[in-house]
């Protein structure tokens, strides 16, 4: 999490910029520091590096030109959407070109009958839903950054949101991606039909963090907006009881449209910020949403309430109208900024674990708070076991920074040990690259590198992210946790 300032080779920079200007308009190639500074980091602002050159292609032809030029000159290319990513996936390189999709922000075609939208990569997530709204349709993935984040970034990161359990991730809602390889080939992956011949290359590209191809067009699936949504807020006097309620819900065969949990420190931080009227004495709260036809929702809310009551909820509120439902959600959606107000910095993790280990994980995090003398409120997508513990720290205090990194590493490694993953939806990027050495064996990492070679033989697209080199793993010195078994299960971990 240290600051990095890459030094830029001025003659190389001049060469690359001049070559790019042969095919791109002058104003679409930036290299003055005052112009490139805004691109030095993404949402993971602890990592910064000035890009050598920034290219702003306005169409597929220009993307092709940038990639061909970079391939010729052997320059790395890092693609960037809105830069809202939380794992440093769009962290630039002082030796590379940052390719921004900001000039490709058009919705090309919306077909209300076939329920698809063909859009350029720089289109914002929420604007797709806004364009589809008149037809009673919407785009399901709704990451909390949806007002700003772009569809290209959503595809690159396989973005999730609060409704994934029922409506899936980006991979489930994207039908076709058009992109350009480093060789300059235009490729179409997937189709506007429900499948395409050959290997499922679309699946490989979704979540590939810009390492396989640069996306120039995306066809998304639109789904009918449910007639009604209603939300239950349930309070618990014990975190583990809330965790168990989640499992109970699934056990009776209910798949809520959203199922979120916040612990008491998170609830309190949020309440001060947005006044969502959350119960402040509760150790944890659950938000449980039902959607569908009015009849369906009435039936499901009744079943949900019954489950929550049996699991020991101390208070249950059902949203009486849309305003109240949005108020319930406002708090959850504002969790990150709210926490940002009570601490100079926070570090957000993204591990996913099997739901039944939620209680255990929360106890482990509480122990780690003591061990590292740092506070850590928790918010999570409880329905899919995706945790977002937020470690509060002050980046100006080097020791706190160091303790935060160790704290985070322990949580992520524990996620792997519990049979989960170091990242559910934020991506590996630069941030969790060391923990990849824990989650995967050397052979598995080598196969990932093989997948990259298949698309990008010279290895120029966003290198040094996502997949660590064996050398890096050796330096990190952590063992691969084999299929959820800790190396010494007999040793206490905290």
């Amino acid at each position, binding site marked *: 999490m240290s600051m990095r300032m890459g030094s830029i080779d001025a003659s190389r920079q001049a060469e690359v910029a001049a070559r790019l200007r042969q095919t791109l308009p002058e104003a679409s190639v930036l290299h003055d520091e005052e112009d490139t500074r805004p691109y030095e980091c993404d949402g993971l602002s602890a990592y910064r590096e000035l890009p050598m050159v920034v290219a702003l292609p306005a169409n597929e032809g220009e993307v092709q030109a940038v990639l061909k030029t970079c391939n010729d000159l052997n320059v790395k290319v890092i693609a960037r959407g809105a830069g809202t990513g939380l794992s440093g996936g769009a962290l630039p390189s002082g030796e590379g070109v940052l390719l921004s999709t900001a000039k490709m922000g058009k919705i090309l075609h919306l077909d209300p009958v076939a329920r698809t939208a063909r859009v350029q990569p720089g289109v914002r997530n929420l604007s797709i839903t806004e364009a589809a709204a008149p037809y009673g349709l919407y785009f399901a993935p709704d990451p909390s950054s949806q007002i700003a984040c772009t569809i290209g970034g959503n595809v690159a990161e396989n973005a999730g949101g609060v409704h994934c359990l029922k409506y*899936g*991730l980006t991979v489930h809602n994207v039908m076709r991606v058009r992109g350009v390889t480093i060789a300059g080939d235009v490729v179409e992956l997937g189709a506007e039909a429900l499948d395409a011949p050959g*290997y499922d290359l679309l*699946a490989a590209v979704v979540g590939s963090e810009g390492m396989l191809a640069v996306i120039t067009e995306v066809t998304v699936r639109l789904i009918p907006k449910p007639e009604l949504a209603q939300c239950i807020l349930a309070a618990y006097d014990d975190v583990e009881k809330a965790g168990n309620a989640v499992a*109970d819900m699934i*056990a009776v*065969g209910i798949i809520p449209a959203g199922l979120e949990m916040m612990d008491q420190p998170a609830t309190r931080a949020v309440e001060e910020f947005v006044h969502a009227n959350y119960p402040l004495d509760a150790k944890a709260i659950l938000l449980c949403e039902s959607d569908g036809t009015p009849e369906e929702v009435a*039936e499901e809310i009744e079943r949900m309430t019954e489950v929550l009551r049996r699991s020991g909820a101390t208070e249950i509120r059902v949203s009486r109208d849309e305003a109240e439902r949005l108020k319930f959600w406002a708090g959850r959606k504002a969790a990150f900024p709210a926490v940002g107000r009570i601490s100079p910095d926070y570090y957000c993790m993204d591990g996913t674990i099997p739901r039944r280990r939620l209680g255990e994980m929360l106890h482990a995090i509480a122990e780690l708070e003591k061990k590292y003398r740092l506070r850590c409120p928790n918010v999570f997508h409880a329905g899919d076991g995706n945790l977002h513990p937020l470690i509060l720290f002050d980046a100006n205090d080097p020791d706190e920074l160091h303790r935060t990194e160790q704290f985070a590493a322990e949580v992520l490694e524990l996620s792997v040990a519990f*049979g989960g993953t170091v990242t559910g939806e934020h991506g590996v990027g630069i941030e969790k690259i060391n923990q990849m050495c824990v989650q995967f064996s050397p052979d598995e990492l080598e196969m990932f590198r093989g997948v990259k070679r*298949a698309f990008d033989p010279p290895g120029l697209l966003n290198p040094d992210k996502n997949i660590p080199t064996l050398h890096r793993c050796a330096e990190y010195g952590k063992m691969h946790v084999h299929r959820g078994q800790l190396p010494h299960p007999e040793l206490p971990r905290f």
Partner: protein
Amino acid sequence: MSDAVTALAATLRAAAESGRRLRVRGGGTKDFYGQSLDGEVLDTRSNAGIVAYEPTELVVTVRGGTRLAELEAVLAEKGQMLAFEPPHFGADATVGGAVAAGLSGPRRQSAGALRDFVLGVRILDGGGRDLSFGGQVMKNVAGYDVSRLLAGSLGTLGVILEVSLKVLPVPVTETTLRLELPEDKAIETMNRWGGKPLPVSATAWTGGDLGVRLSGAEAAVRAARAKIGGEVVDDARARAFWTGIREHTDPFFGPSVPLWRVSVPSAAASIGIPGDQLVEWGGSLRWLATGADARVIRDLAAKAGGHATLFRGGDKAVGVFHPLAPAIARIHANLKREFDPQGILNRGRMYPDF
């Protein structure tokens, strides 16, 4: 590593060394599917059984050689199911074979395809290396999504040892309706329903009859029934009907003319080729029983934004799978080389050149 896996890995390593080609096979129920069968049979069925099943996690991890019917029975006991309704094409179908074939049944239009439910895989690659990708959790973006890449790869990239699948609760209630509609009206109607929040879980049109299955909460199914109209099919007949569509035992699939699977955008107009047709998946899947020229069929499918597969019968010399664009074909060849450098696994099963 179990004895079965050790033995499979040893066979693969030896075959890779000698360049001996292997034909990965479970129950052999899908031997008819694909370009060509080449190599000595590598039977995966010694590696069978359910590794982990926790209904509250909505995830089951199962060995590749497990019979699909056995897995489905275990899930049914807990009121859960494989929502993509994989076709078996025979009692011996295995889970590994279903994943390798990547085929989904009638519920695909609403629930998603097999690939959408694959959360993780453990494979032996062409060199016999034991590799795991993905996991047992719903959300996982660590590394590339190799698990989904394996789904539908027809055994050309690796032997599936284990797969973790997302499972879903069985719908509380299901009702099937039958409506009389000509093809164009049926396609239009299915697309209109698709744009509405209706609990339509499957559709199948043939010969002027449209079957619609509604699945979900009692109240939702009741309300949708009123909106859609048509005549209610009794439960036993409805179940038999959808099984017939999934397993290709329906009379439509009877004749021995070549069967084409044409995948197109849901609202695409009728393909317009002489012969019988069955339309599924809200209009996205068109089964054609026709002796028409392969080039004509492929051309029409491509013009509609889709592709055509010679699913069963006919002359495979025309190519079973739709030809790939050159840049895409190169990526395929590269991937094959990374997963199976000696080219010993299911050579030619998907495309003749790998």
